């Protein structure tokens, strides 16, 4: 393997994480260079979501370490959080607030102001003032996407971005990922749409039972 001179965007070494008695991640080691789009494949329960949650600092690794953007996920969480964003299974939305309000809450806390533009981008401009409780699963996904993009992250973790979306939604996701890549961001995509994502991903790893069982493409 050629040693890359630049620091990897993401580094994980022997990362393990348990839930009760079960080790969701047993031993995950990999590296990704900046600006790459990496696909993370694996069956249900292989640990993809857990891996993303560890890398985005939502949870701590029980063993091993990981660095995102050069910052340790356990000891330098604030720095990681400033540079990354997670699109998770759970939407992180407040049911009783409207779409616009949900985004405004985030915007005010982080000091950005692109709410209206993003709502338009994800195709929710028409429903901006409706409470999230009236949204379908696909619309929530779009809103969560907008929420993640609002943070203008350099490193993005997308956990099943295509889930619950219609064909237009699929195209939206493809477009957004392409734009992110063009802007130099590093994107990790956990997905079952392996063929679709393989079409544009630079590299991939496959997880099974919390371990990396295969890699392909240039990770670095």
């Amino acid at each position, binding site marked *: 393997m050629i040693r890359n001179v630049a620091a990897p965007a993401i580094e994980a070494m022997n990362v393990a994480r348990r839930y*009760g*008695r079960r*080790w969701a991640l*047993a031993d995950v*080691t990999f*590296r990704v260079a900046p600006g790459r789009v990496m696909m993370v494949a694996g069956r249900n329960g292989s640990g993809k979501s857990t891996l993303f949650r560890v890398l985005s600092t939502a949870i701590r690794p029980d*063993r091993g370490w990981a660095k995102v953007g050069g910052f340790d996920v356990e000891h330098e969480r604030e720095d990681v959080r400033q540079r990354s964003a997670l699109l998770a299974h759970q939407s992180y939305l407040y049911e009783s607030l409207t779409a616009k309000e949900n985004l405004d809450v985030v915007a005010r806390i982080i000091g950005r102001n692109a709410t209206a533009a993003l709502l338009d981008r994800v195709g929710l401009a028409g429903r901006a003032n409706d409470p999230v409780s009236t949204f379908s699963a696909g619309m929530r996904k779009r809103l969560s996407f907008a929420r993640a993009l609002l943070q203008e992250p350099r490193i993005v973790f997308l956990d099943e971005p295509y889930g619950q979306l219609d064909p237009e939604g699929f195209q939206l996701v493809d477009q957004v990922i392409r734009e992110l890549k063009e802007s130099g961001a590093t994107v990790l995509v956990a997905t079952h749409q392996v063929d679709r994502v393989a079409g544009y991903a630079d590299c991939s*790893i496959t997880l*099974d039972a919390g371990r*990396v069982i295969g890699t392909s493409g240039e990770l670095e």
Partner: protein
Amino acid sequence: MKRSFAIAFALLAVGVYFGLIVTAGEQYLHADLSLGVSVVARTLIAFLSGLAAVIVFLGGDDIENYARPKILLVTGVLFLLVGSYFGLFVAPPEQFMGDTQRIMYVHVPTAWFALLAMTIGFVSAVVFLFNSDFVWDARMEGSIEVGVVFAFLLCCQGAIWAKPTWGVWWDWDPRLTTTAVLLFAFLGILALRRFVEDPVKRGIWSSVATIIAYVDVPIVYFSVKWWNSLHQQQSSPNTVSKPFWIPLRANAFGILLLMVAFIMLRARISALRLKHELAPPPLVEAQLGEAV
């Protein structure tokens, strides 16, 4: 590790000597064993070396060996037997309260060591929050449980004393009431531990709750004291004059040793459970594991 046990035992011996043996010598052998140390200094030495012994016993405990707590258990029971004999049969009845006062020989030490156990729990909680070492979580669980048991005993003893003396089971004495509140607070923390399965979360949450509850103890005490101040202030039975010292102190040492022994034993149970819960991921056979 073995050395710390010996040191702690030596400290204990010093405390027992100055706190108990000298007084016994004065009273029953009419001999002066005090080595020239004044009464006040003796009490202070006994108190400090007892405390130091507790700290070294628990701090140097590796939560593995079972012989040590058993030794302490046996020694503690012996002291308790001596103290109880003196307390029940030898010491004179008190001036105002007669024989009911004898319960003070267990009540007073139980009170001291309930508070000490809770303090040990508090210190363990703080240390655990700083270094995330599960040994301290085990110690905290052990000391809180022992503290809860002692607090419960305190309430029972208080009730037993109050009925013949005041005619009611409970007299809202500030110290006893604070103990009751303390009992409920820490029972709540133990309940919290039962409901949380993840060991890390369980440790952190119960440490936080312990700190919050412990800080509250003096506040509760003062508030209950003021609240109760309009009522007649009950006087405590006399335990300060010399004839009462021997049973009181013998029991004190006994209960101190029992407290330490129980904390050690309970911490071992916790530690075993934690070892099981924190086991590393199982190794899988050759086919997987080809890393990048």
